[in-house]
């Protein structure tokens, strides 16, 4: 574990000197949190809008069921802000993808992979070190953003009942369980992509495609085709666990010394 931690610390001290990576880790959470809180704030200050929010007839029936005891504007505020839950799930994909792309392809372009692989460490330790170095900042950034969002919502929500809803099982499962699973998937996919490309920007862009299923979920939710409820998020978590296991096995296969040295060119 000590070796893995040493690799993590080395990765951080190197990749965070890269402005692109630093921007991704700091800027993305800031923007996403700001968007969510701005929506809250706009509902708070706009009187006309406030009036229109009393009418819940535009809310899909499935979502009304999710509102439970929330009534009128409370349900509408919860409905609108819930659309932005997906933003908090994009963060754990985008951030590790950027870090892993620069960290792995960077080793190739600077020719540091060979001395690193010549050290008496296992390929699994190396992969774990790089994986944690990419996933931990993303998970912390997601959790930190959500904490800021939770504090902001407690100030801006029309009632404490809305805040309580936003800290309910659905959101907690999404933030505390699904976001780390998404990070693992993103890192694993970045490792696979990095094994085939030589430019970190290409790796980053290709890794970014992982966000597409989430965007589909976001659009489906926005158009009322899908409603993200507790059972759906649990199914998503289970599916991600399975996918992560598959991705990790493939990533480990690709991360063998001989494969890296002779095929990663």
């Amino acid at each position: 574990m000590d070796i893995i931690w040493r690799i993590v610390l080395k990765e951080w001290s190197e990749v965070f000197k890269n402005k692109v990576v630093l921007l991704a880790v700091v800027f993305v959470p800031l923007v996403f949190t700001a968007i969510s809180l701005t929506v809250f704030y706009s509902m708070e200050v706009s009187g006309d809008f406030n009036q229109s929010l009393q009418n819940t007839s535009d809310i899909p029936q499935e979502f009304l069921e999710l509102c439970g005891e929330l009534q009128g504007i409370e349900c509408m505020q919860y409905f609108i802000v819930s659309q932005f839950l997906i933003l908090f799930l994009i963060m754990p994909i985008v951030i590790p993808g950027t870090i892993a792309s620069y960290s792995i392809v960077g080793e190739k372009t600077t020719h540091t992979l060979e001395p690193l692989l010549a050290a008496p460490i296992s390929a699994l330790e190396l992969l774990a070190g790089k994986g944690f170095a990419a996933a931990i900042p993303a998970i912390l950034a997601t959790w930190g953003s959500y904490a800021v969002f939770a504090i902001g919502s407690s100030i801006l929500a029309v009632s404490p009942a809305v805040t309580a809803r936003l800290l309910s099982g659905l959101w907690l499962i999404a933030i505390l369980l699904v976001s780390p699973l998404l990070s693992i998937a993103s890192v694993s996919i970045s490792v696979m992509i990095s094994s085939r490309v030589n430019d970190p920007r290409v790796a980053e862009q290709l890794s970014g495609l992982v966000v597409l299923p989430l965007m589909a979920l976001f659009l489906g939710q926005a158009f009322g085709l899908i409603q993200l409820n507790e059972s759906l998020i649990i199914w998503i978590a289970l599916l991600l666990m399975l996918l992560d296991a598959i991705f990790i096995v493939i990533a480990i296969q690709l991360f063998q010394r001989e494969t890296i040295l002779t095929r990663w060119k």
Partner: protein
Amino acid sequence: MIQTQDLCKSFGSIQAVRNLSISIPAGEVFGLLGPNGAGKTTTLRMLSALISPSSGEARVADYRIGSQDTDVRRNVGILTESPGLYERLSAERNLSFFASLYRVEDIPAQAEKYLRMLGLWNRRHEEVGGFSKGMKQKLAIARTLLHEPRVLFLDEPTNGLDPETAHLVRDFISDLRHAGRTILLCTHNLDEADRLCDRIAVFKTALLALDSPSNLRRTLHNRTVVFHLVQVLSQFKPLLESKDFVRSVQVLDNKLVITLDNPETYNPILVSMLVEHGAEIRFIGEVRQTLEDVYLKLVNGQEDSL
């Protein structure tokens, strides 16, 4: 310290290394010479337990490649063709990171020892990206030695360096030899191999020749002596050619260029014979065959035979 037996490595249908059998005792500097694509780096990677052999056996520092790879890596220091340093980290941070991977006990002391030894101590806090190529190479050498490996694999250690830094690196390798380390040196620099190596293997997928530099020269080239005379008389050439031990005689101006088996034994005979027949000898010299001549003869000879 290093033994290989019929070591082979193939990548698909391409055979990179074929039946390599060598034995390198402790404390020897062993040169591996060969053209680009000869399989030198592949051999180094196999012996560093970075890639596995397709067949054959190898032991490095008493550990077997394939089944004791972690022990092999712990006892080997490898200097790769590119320095391979983290450019955004300082020199000291680069060394301390690698030292931690090798589980070096007193990391700051080891890093300081080699930073001072290679003249980088005053630049230890600077990012490596700002270093010159020579400084990077010196830092890479320091990294190779941090864990005090018994065996060193050096792949083109002076490649691309200015003459002064190359000289410093060569001196350092020479010091390492005196410190008892076993060194396997891959190089294109034949003069460097000639000066540093106890033995040399000329290699192109398979082993072409293996011996000390002087023996290689002797085995592959008959020795040539030059007699500088006041005047070369017409009878000298047939006279010399009549002797069994003389391979050939050439007359160039006032010089007789004679190829023969054993100058130490036969030079006095030639001198007496020539003086008897009226030659006035100014001086006698030997044409020294370079390692390059040996190398080209072996490598081109193999190409011709293919």
